[in-house]
C-alpha cells in the first residue's frame, strides 16, 4: 500500500508500530550489550565499544551531577515555601506550609498580573527574534557553504572578527543609535539585535557544507528549479537537525538575555522575564520595599521550565546537530 492511499489514522497507527518496534529493538540491543559485558568480564577480554561499566567513575561523575542539579532542587523546594518559611527554615528542607500553588497564583496576580505580561513579552521576543535569527542563519550559512559569491571572504573575516567584539562595545553605541531613531523602549530594540546569531551562522555553514550534497543541488537546477525552490524543497529538509540546534541556541540566547533589555527598555510593560525578576528581587533592598523572595523564586522556576522541557524533548536533535558542528574545527 502506498502512502498516498492511506488514511491519516492508518498512517498514525503505522508510525506508532514503527516506534514500538524501534523501542523493542533498543531494549534488545541493551540486553545483548549487557550480556556481552558479562561475558567479557569473565574472559578478561574487553570490547572498546562496549566496556565494563565502572562504579568508581560513575560515583565521581555523580558528585559533579549533584553539583549541577542541586540548585534546581533548591529552586523547586523553595518555590513551595511562604516568605516567612523561606527566611526561617532550612534551605534544602520543606517549610511548615506547602505554598506552591499559592505562590504560583500570587506570581501571576501580583502588581496586576505584570508577570503574565513579562511572560508574553519574552515569548514575543523569542518567536520573532530567535525565529528570525534562525531563518537568517540558515540562509546565510547555506549561502556561505554552497555558493562562491563575490565578497564571501570578506563576510567570513568580518563575522569572525565580530564574534570577538565584546557585547558592551556594541551595546552602548547600539543604544545611542537606537535612541536616535526612536527605537529604544519598544519591542524592536529587543528584537532587532536578537536577529543576529553569529554562532548560529557558523553552525549552519558547517552543517550545510556537510548535509547538502552539491550533486543534488545541480540535479535540481538542471531540472529547472529556481534557487529558492531548490532551497525550500531540497535543502531545508536535509538541514533539519542543524536547524533545531541553531533554533534552540538562539532561543536560549534570547530567552536568557539580560544585558540588552536592561539598557534598551525603561518601561516595565515591555520587560522580558529576566529583567522583571531582577526588579522583583531588588525590591527587597529598596527603602520601604516589601521582600517577595518567595515570588522571585517561584517566578524563576516558571521562567526556566519551558527551556528545560525544550532541551529535554529535543535532545536527539541538538546533540546530533552539535556533533556535526564539531567535525570541522
Amino acid at each position, binding site marked *: 500500500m502506498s502512502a498516498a492511499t492511506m488514511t491519516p489514522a492508518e498512517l498514525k497507527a503505522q508510525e506508532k508500530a514503527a516506534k514500538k518496534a524501534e523501542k523493542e529493538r533498543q531494549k534488545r540491543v541493551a540486553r545483548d550489550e549487557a550480556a556481552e559485558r558479562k561475558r567479557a568480564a569473565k574472559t578478561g577480554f574487553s570490547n572498546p565499544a562496549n566496556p565494563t561499566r565502572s562504579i568508581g567513575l560513575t560515583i565521581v561523575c555523580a558528585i559533579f551531577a549533584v553539583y549541577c542539579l542541586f540548585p534546581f532542587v533548591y529552586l523547586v523546594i523553595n518555590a513551595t515555601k511562604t516568605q516567612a518559611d523561606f527566611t526561617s527554615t532550612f*534551605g534544602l528542607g520543606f517549610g511548615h506550609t506547602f505554598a506552591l500553588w499559592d505562590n504560583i497564583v500570587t506570581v501571576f496576580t501580583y502588581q496586576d498580573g505584570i508577570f503574565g505580561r513579562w511572560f508574553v513579552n519574552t515569548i514575543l521576543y523569542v518567536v520573532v527574534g530567535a525565529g528570525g535569527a534562525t531563518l537568517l542563519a540558515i*540562509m546565510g550559512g547555506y549561502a*556561505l557553504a554552497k555558493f562562491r559569491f563575490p565578497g564571501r571572504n570578506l563576510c567570513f573575516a568580518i563575522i569572525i572578527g565580530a564574534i570577538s567584539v565584546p557585547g558592551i562595545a556594541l551595546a552602548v553605541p547600539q543604544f545611542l543609535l537606537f535612541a536616535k531613531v526612536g527605537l529604544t523602549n519598544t519591542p524592536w530594540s529587543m528584537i532587532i539585535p536578537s536577529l543576529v546569531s553569529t554562532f548560529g551562522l557558523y553552525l549552519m555553514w558547517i552543517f550545510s557544507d556537510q548535509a547538502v550534497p552539491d550533486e543534488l543541488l545541480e540535479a535540481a537546477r538542471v531540472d529547472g528549479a529556481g534557487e529558492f525552490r531548490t532551497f525550500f524543497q531540497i535543502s531545508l529538509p536535509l538541514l533539519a537537525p542543524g536547524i533545531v540546534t541553531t533554533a534552540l541556541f538562539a532561543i536560549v540566547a534570547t530567552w536568557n538575555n539580560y544585558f540588552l533589555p536592561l539598557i534598551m527598555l525603561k518601561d516595565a510593560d515591555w520587560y522580558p522575564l529576566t529583567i522583571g525578576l531582577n526588579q522583583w528581587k531588588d525590591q527587597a533592598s529598596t527603602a520601604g520595599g516589601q521582600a517577595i523572595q518567595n515570588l522571585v523564586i517561584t517566578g524563576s522556576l516558571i521562567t526556566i521550565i519551558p527551556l528545560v522541557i525544550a532541551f529535554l524533548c529535543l535532545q536527539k536533535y541538538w546533540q546530533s546537530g552539535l556533533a556535526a558542528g564539531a567535525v570541522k574545527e
Partner: protein
Amino acid sequence: MSEQTLGAASAQTGLLPEMTSRHTAQARINKHKADWRGWKFMWPFALVFVFVFIIPIVYAIFISFFKKQMIGGTKFVGFENYSRLFVDQQFWSSVWRVALFTIVQVPIMLFLAAAMALALDSMKLHGTKFFRISTFLPYAVPAVVSTMIWGFVYGAKYGLVGSFNDFFGTNLDVLAPDVLLAAIGNINTWEFTGYNMLIFYSSLSTIPHSLYEAASIDGASEWQIVKRIKLPELRGSLAITVIFSIIGSFQLFNEPSILQNMVPGNAITTYYTPNMYAYNLSFSGNQSNYAAALAITMAVITMAIAYAVQLRSMKEQMK
C-alpha cells in the same frame, strides 16, 4: 522539465520568469563571471548585521574622539578619552580583576568540562544519558536566575551558608570582599561547564570507533587511547572553547551586577568589571563618549588576547 514548472517555481519565489531563465542561462554561458546567486540568501543576514554590528562599532569609534562639555556642546578632543583611560585607576583595577578571574576560572571550568566529556565518551558510566543531560541543564538557566539561586545559597542570613554556619558553629562568609570573586567564579563555572563539556563531547564522538578497536587490538591500554587519540582530538575544540571563555569572562557583567544588591555593603563597586564600569559611565554618569573609548579599548585587548591564544594553539597543531 517543462516551462510550466519553471514558471511555478519562479511564481513561488516571487521572481519574474524571464529573470530566472535569463539568469541561469547567463550563469551557464559565463562561468568565469561573478556568481551573485549566494547574495540571494546572504543579504538578509548581512543587512541586519551591518545595522546591528558594523554601524554601532563605527559609531563607537567615532564618538570616542569627542567629549560632552557643560558649555559649547560636544567637542572633538582627539585621543583625550584614551589617554585619560590610560591613567584611570578604576579602569585598570577592573581589568586586572577580570584578568585574574580569567586565569583562574577558565582553566578550572575547561578542565572539568574535558574530564566530564572524556568520562561520558568512555561509555563506562552507568546512565551516560542521565549524566549528559544533567550536566548540560544549567546552560538553559538564565544568568539572572542562576545568580539569584546562588546568591540565596550564599546568603549568611538565611541561605545554605547561613544554615551551615548555624549547624557547625562556623563563621563562613563567601560574600566577603576577598572571596567574592571566587564565589562569582563558581556561578560561572556552574553555568558554563556543561556547555563546554558538550562541545568537547561532540568532537570526541566524531572519532570513528574502529580506531579504538584497532588500538586495543594493537595492545594499547585505556590511558594510551585517551592520550594518543582522544586528547589530540580535543585540542581542536579546545581552541574554540578557550577563546569563547576568554571573551566571555572579559565581558563579565551579569553575575556581579545582579549580585550587587545581595552582597552586604559596597563590595561590588560600580567599576567591578570593565563592562560594569562602561555601563555605569554611560547610563548613570552620562559619559557615553568616555564609555565608548573604554569599550573600544576592551575590544582591542580582548581580541589581542583571543588571537594570541588562537595563534599559539594553531602553531602547536601545525607541529
